[in-house]
């Protein structure tokens, strides 16, 4: 099967994730969209890894998951603390600093 299709799919997912980041207000959802983007990258990596017949891509994919996990830890910590102070997880409410 043509590897390009995998690439297209990855790109599609990535774009969907990016769009989500752009349009969703809830910080958690925004963050989940970022995760989606990362996984899109994973798809691409694995596809290329298969294509090139070496494992680098798959290894990166694993690293990505770890990184994503770490990001979840940090991100949730921040978002939750913000939520607790503001009782809202909307990124648009956070507008103290502007201009």
């Amino acid at each position, binding site marked *: 099967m043509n590897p390009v299709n995998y690439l297209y799919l990855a790109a599609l997912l990535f774009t969907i994730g*990016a769009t989500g*980041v*752009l*349009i969703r*207000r809830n910080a958690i959802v*925004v963050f989940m969209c970022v995760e989606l983007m990362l996984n899109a990258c994973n798809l691409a990596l694995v596809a290329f890894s298969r294509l090139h017949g070496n494992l680098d891509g798959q290894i990166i994919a694993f690293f990505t998951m770890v990184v994503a996990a770490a990001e979840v830890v940090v991100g949730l910590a921040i978002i939750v603390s913000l939520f607790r102070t503001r009782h809202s997880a909307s*990124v*648009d409410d*956070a*507008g*103290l*600093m*502007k*201009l």
Partner: protein
Amino acid sequence: MENLIALLIAAPLLGAAVLLCGGRRLDAVGHWIGTVLAAASFAVGVVLFTDMLGRSAEERTLTRHLYSWIPVEGFRADVAFHLDQLSMTFVLLISGVGTLIHVYSIGYMEHDERRRRFFGYLNLFLAAMLLLVLADNYLLLYVGWEGVGLASYLLIGFWQHKPSAATAAKKAFLVNRVGDVGLSIAIMLMFTTFGTFAFGPVLAAAGDTGEGKLTAIALMLLLAACGKSAQVPLQSWLGDAMEGPTPVSALIHAATMVTAGVYLIVRSGAIFNAAPDAQLVVTVVGAVTLLFGAVVGCAKDDIKKALAGSTMSQIGYMVLAAGLGPIGYVFAIMHLVTHGFFKAGLFLGAGSVMHGMNDEVDMRRYGGLRKYMPVTFVTFGLGYLAIIGFPGLSGFFSKDKIIEAAFAKGGAEGWILGGAALLGAAITAYYMTRVMLMTFFGEERWRDAPTPSPAESDVEPAAETRGEYTPPHPHESPSSMTIPMIVLAFGSVFAGAFFGIGDRFLHWLEPVTGHAHGHPPVSALTVTLSTVVVLIVGVAIAWAQYGRRPVPAVAPRGSLLTRAARRDLLQDDFNHVVLVRGGEHLTRSLVYVDHTLVDGVVNGTAASVGGLSGRLRKLQNGYARSYAVSMFGGAAVLVAATLLMRAV
């Protein structure tokens, strides 16, 4: 001997330095220091003169090179002096009359607490004037030229607390500056033409270059002369200059400084001789001015202003003569010297009158003063006779020769110029007689309080017109004032005869100025006779107007010409409207331009950048998602651009 030349200038210069820096502690003796140093300078002059007489006409010229002043590649200006018969004539006139007027001032300025400074300025003037006539190159002459301008500025404005005096001083300096520009341009032209501006080389090489260049130089010199000698069109300052103390008017604005222009032209004779067109202009200027001054002199009621007009007119004669070339040079100088005597005498007389009339200058407030101040009357009278050219007195000899020379120019020009000169002589006789009559004859108009006249309302009213009026007590002046007047009277009586008979003066100056005998279309005798005739006519008319009928204490409105003449033939009004007003508008608009346009451009740029900043700032709206949008867009652009780069 040469070393004495420097002493001529050094003495008064020292005086000026001492008196001006000395401070109050010199107040008591200041005037003596000044007078003595002036006299010293005169003494040195006499010594040099006798020495000069001792030598034959050829090697009478003395030169003294002091030091190299401005040495720059291809440019050489020295401090060097050149004493020949011409300069010597001036040296004696300046230091002689100067000394007399110092003496006169001792009395005249007695009650002025700033007398020391007055003498300081006088000495400064002497030094500058002597430098002017002794310099051996045009640049050094320029120094003296502006130096006398400065002295005249300081002395006209000596009573600075009077706004009129301050303004008059400023005006004098500015008008002279215009003339000075002419002189400096002339010097630049000489430099580019001859590579030097020392008298010797320039005058020697004058023949070697194109007439156009020479005409340009000559006209520029003429412009300078007009400024300094109050010739049309730069004459307007002289009348106002009478704001200065009378001795100043006598020394600077009658006898010496104002004649510097004539000196300049005669000195540069070689250039003018080679530029006939320029000479024609010179004669025209002279002729116009002599009539102009005369007309103005007729209309003025202020005795000093009347005399000022006469000065203008007399210098017009000299310039006319100088414009005639070798025929006229000698007579120009001769008239200059005689005029120096009688005009100084007249001014001192006027000063003496004012002294006795507590500084009243309006002749309509005089009258019948001859019995109160006999000496003044006699000396003034002699001066009067001299200036109108009464046969046998000095004015007669010098002026008559000029008129002759004017006719001798030949052709229509000769007739016109000569006619003008004759007419001038008539008018001179008229207005001088008028002055004489209004001042010393007729009933005593100063007894009752004055009433300001509509015609004079624009002139600022004299002090007495305000408040309680106390009639003055006319009295003769102290001897310190009368003696100089007497001496000058002698000069005005005999100088002409001494110079003229046997052409003494001619032979004295000829080696320097050269001389050519003109041939008037009519015989010399005819000219002389006609001169006498017009003289009598002028006197007669004046007598008819002011001798027979009583003089109204208030000036009648008078004819259009009279009114114009009272206002210096509207010359000031012209200046005011065109130059002053125009200038004010120009500067005001320029200030506006500078602020709004030149500065505005920069400030505008700054403001626009600020506005841009304010607008861009709005993009930073604090919403994380919009930041993400910009990043996403940026990424898209980045990718697109990279791909595009490859595509093209």
